[in-house]
């Protein structure tokens, strides 16, 4: 009776997390393309899987890669979390490695915060220098 130990047909799965209300378990919706026999067009068919997530890192809306467990862990839990592919709100572009939002790149806050402080003091110094030069220019014109 070794049929159940093989667990599921699908070893690797990519899906979107739809629920994290269970402890250490994520509810993942997986869509596969299924051919409509009459229209001969492919449509998404949904199926929900439960995945074991020991560190509770998933939030609703993450795109997640699941790996099939060698043995069924609970009545419904058949997969475990292998990797979070796209974290919701913090998608990282695999080509460049930078943070991305839709079709734009996000610049991280730390970079933009450091420069203003430095640039302000520099600007003050520039103002002083420019004021001094203006005075020097005006004095000869007067005299």
């Amino acid at each position: 009776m070794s049929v159940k130990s093989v667990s599921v047909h699908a070893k690797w799965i990519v899906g979107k997390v739809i629920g994290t209300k269970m402890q250490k378990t994520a509810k993942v919706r997986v869509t596969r393309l299924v051919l409509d026999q009459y229209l001969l067009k492919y449509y998404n068919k949904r199926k929900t899987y439960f995945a074991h997530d020991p560190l509770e890192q998933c939030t609703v809306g993450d795109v997640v890669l699941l790996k099939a467990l060698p043995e069924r862990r609970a009545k419904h839990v058949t997969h475990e979390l292998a990797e979070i592919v796209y974290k919701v709100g913090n998608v990282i572009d695999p080509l460049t490695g930078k943070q991305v939002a839709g079709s734009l790149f996000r610049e991280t806050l730390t970079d933009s915060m450091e420069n203003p402080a430095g640039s302000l003091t520099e600007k003050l110094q520039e103002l002083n220098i420019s004021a001094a030069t203006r005075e020097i220019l005006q004095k000869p014109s007067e005299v």
Partner: protein
Amino acid sequence: MPMKGRYPIRRTLEYLQKGDIVFKNTVKIMTVNYNTHGELSDGARKFVFFNIPQIQYKNPWVQVMMFKNVTPAPFLKFYLDDGDQVLVDAEGKDHKDISQHVKKILGKSEEVLQAEELARMVHSNPANFGPKKYCLRECMCEVEGQVPCPGLIPLPNEMRGKYKSQMKGTEV
């Protein structure tokens, strides 16, 4: 009466069966990221529109997922059985270039496909009779020109064992 939709040829069995790309057994998941606007994603959009149905038809056990407007640059990602991931950049490429590239890196070669077809032909002998799942015909009555099924049309008396035994009994 023409078919509905733009490019309805995509929805014909002939078009689907003409698909080139048959993935190797290790490829489990294919993910396409593309944008709905912009010229850079144009090749990826055409790839999804024209080639994805063919790929899914030839590889029914591969999960294909599409993501729209997630990242600025379009790309394809493949997840293999060992846990390996293959990233294919699709920015600015034509859909034919993308499909040829994918076929080159992850598709089964012509020789492998022909060898598989030969193996399948050798395995299934058309001369065998049996269940529809494994053989072409179940009974000789299905073949044209042969004796029709006695369930539909009664056999002539010369071929019926019951009649023959009755005649033998009455004669002798």
